[in-house]
């Protein structure tokens, strides 16, 4: 009992201490609550902050998170300006942005994926017409506009098409010049598929996994071709309804992917993006529809072995068709941020796209092919192949898929493709491709 008494005295002191701590927190919290409610609107409430602004960049790409952090550190060392880089976990950018925006320390710099995302965030976009980052753009069309206002500036130019393994294509007895349109692509692929054991591959194309890690290659990128061609023909950029004029071609290319493949159609739904990468890297397949962002994953087969073909689907002017070139990465500056923070952010962006450190980091560490005047050329072989194609007179295909209504639409399409691959009817794909466009566009309104 006595020993217990001693114990409880000590406990008493420590617990009392904790209580005081608790009260302390309460006190602090209370103060800040009153002060912030006094000053009203969140944007300019931080009266205690210094005159120099801060930068808070909510980054979209997890794979370049570290490179951004390193670059931010360099900038802070040089200028003393605080730059925070936060990356949303994969697939959570939109929700992260939604939950961060109302906060008092909201992102000053954020990303928009295209006109669909702009709908949601245009109220938060500062007009960038007079900004240096916009003036530095080599291609002034790579922006998101709302009327005359420049809402967002594209900062990466990405290309996709059909990536192929040069060594394996040679081994199969072909070269790039043998593939000039969809018909010849199909002929070569069919032949490789027929002689796969002799060539030592498992299939012409890597497995077209349809789970969410991989389905975007087909619902977004493959679908870009029929969409781009239809938009061009109809003279529209962001229609509320589509006709699906080139849907049969979409079927042709998708059939080719899943027929001349490393695995049986029925197994596709059990394949992931990682499976496709490992098949390509291990030399089990010749063709892999993907873009220059995937270079890091397939680097190990050697730069000299990586080639790029246009994404032929058997429509349009295939003799002149180049890679699909565009971006889903636009920078927008938060219009609600304080003026100091906006200025700090614009200064940071200018530094990123013009300074040696910035351009080098963007090109080498992040592997971006940037559209700015002083951007350093990336040594990514897929990007190089795409650039060469365009220099050689081919015409880049724009990223029409960027105006697909929303993620729901893409998920539905993936589902339909999956059912089709498992032996279902193409009509489901047609419904998901054409009818859902109108439904989901309306649901966004």
């Amino acid at each position, binding site marked *: 009992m006595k020993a*217990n*008494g001693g114990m*409880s005295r000590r*406990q*008493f002191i420590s*617990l*009392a201490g*904790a*209580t005081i*701590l*608790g009260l302390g*927190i*309460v006190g*602090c*919290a209370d103060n*800040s*609550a009153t002060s*912030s*409610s006094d000053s009203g609107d*969140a944007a300019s409430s931080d009266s205690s902050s210094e005159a120099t602004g801060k930068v*808070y960049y909510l980054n*979209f*790409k*997890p*794979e370049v998170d*570290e490179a951004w952090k390193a670059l931010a550190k360099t900038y802070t060392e040089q200028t003393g300006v605080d730059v*925070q880089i*936060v*990356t949303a*976990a*994969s*697939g*959570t950018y939109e929700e*992260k942005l939604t*939950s*961060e925006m*109302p*906060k*008092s*320390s909201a992102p000053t710099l954020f990303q928009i994926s295209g006109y669909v995302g702009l709908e949601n965030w245009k109220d938060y976009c500062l007009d960038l017409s007079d900004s240096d980052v916009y003036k530095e753009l080599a291609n002034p069309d790579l922006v998101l506009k709302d009327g005359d206002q420049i809402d967002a500036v594209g900062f990466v130019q990405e290309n996709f098409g059909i990536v192929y393994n040069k060594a394996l294509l040679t081994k199969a007895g072909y070269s790039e010049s043998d593939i000039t349109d969809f018909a010849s692509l199909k002929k070569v692929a069919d032949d490789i598929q027929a002689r796969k054991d002799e060539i030592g591959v498992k299939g012409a194309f890597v497995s077209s996994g349809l*789970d*969410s*890690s*991989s389905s*975007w290659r087909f619902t977004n990128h493959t679908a870009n071709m029929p969409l781009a061609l239809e938009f061009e023909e109809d003279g529209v950029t962001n229609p509320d309804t589509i006709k699906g004029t080139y849907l049969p071609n979409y079927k042709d290319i998708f059939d080719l992917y899943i027929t001349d493949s490393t695995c049986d159609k029925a197994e596709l739904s*059990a394949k*992931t*993006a*990682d*499976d496709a*990468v*490992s098949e390509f890297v291990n030399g089990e397949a010749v063709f892999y529809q993907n873009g220059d*962002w*995937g270079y890091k*994953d397939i680097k190990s087969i050697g730069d000299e072995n990586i080639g790029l073909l246009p994404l032929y689907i058997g429509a349009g002017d295939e003799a002149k068709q180049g890679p699909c070139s565009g971006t889903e990465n636009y920078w927008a500056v938060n219009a609600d941020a304080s003026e100091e923070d906006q200025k700090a952010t614009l200064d940071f962006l200018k530094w990123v796209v013009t300074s040696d450190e910035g351009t080098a980091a963007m090109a080498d560490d992040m592997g971006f092919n940037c559209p700015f005047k002083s951007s350093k050329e990336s040594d990514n072989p897929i990007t190089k192949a795409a650039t060469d194609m365009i220099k050689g007179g081919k015409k880049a295909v724009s990223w029409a898929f960027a105006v697909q209504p929303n993620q729901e639409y893409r998920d539905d399409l993936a589902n339909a493709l999956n059912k089709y691959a498992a032996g279902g009817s193409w009509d489901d794909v047609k419904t998901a491709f054409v009818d859902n466009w109108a439904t989901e566009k309306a649901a966004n309104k």
Partner: protein
Amino acid sequence: MGKEKATNRVLSIFFTILSLAWIYPMFMILVNSFKTESSINTTSVFELLGASNFNGLANYVNALTRQGFAAAFMNSLIITVTSVALILVCCSMCAWYVVRVNNRFCKAVYFLFVFSMVVPFQMLMFTLSGLADRMGLNTPLNICFIYLGFGAGLAVFMFAGFVKTIPTEIEEAAMIDGCSPLQVFFHVVLPIMKPTYISVGILETMWVWNDYLLPYLVLDSTKYKTIPILIQYFRGGFGHVELGPMMACIMMVIVPIVVVYLVCQRYIISGVVSGAVKG
């Protein structure tokens, strides 16, 4: 009675197998956390370690260094320890007061506490994160204030349930001896309530340590991550998941929990039981 024995033997064997199956998911993560990145894919998960796929501690090093594991672990630890300490001290005092004073105000407060226990977090996630941001409750220490408020329901309920069973005579005797209420509480009531402290402490620790959504929405994401938030960052862009480091990270999260559990098993289990019976 031979039949009884035979049944027991069969049951023993059955439960041994079932126990092994029960541990298997954790065992699988352990095995795979030592494999090389390229040898972990959807089909090879079941394979055991061998010379070809053994990667040593590389995944652990990767998880530790790259994603800020140590910082996240510390944040989780700070939040859990501080929140639970606050909850235990403040809520037990509050519960004692509420039961002993028992006026209209106390009854109303008690009702609200009980009500808060059943309200799902989704109901207030948006408004709470806004409020927390404006009040500056977005650091690992200050977030504990929210945990105190949000965890108060269960804690006050359980403490109050116990206080009701303590006869008031002892406290009154101490009061007559000249103790202040504070002294009565810490010298008399607190020692009697020790088992309840353990129960509440364990239940609240399990909740706070594993909580995902509240810190994800509330914490200043430019600076702080907790363990459950960190795990998500092993999924890269374009569907690529860094399974090796992710599993190493999972292991580093599970192992301390398992160790603590094995050491304090008796308390944890009795804590859970009394918590459930009262809840």
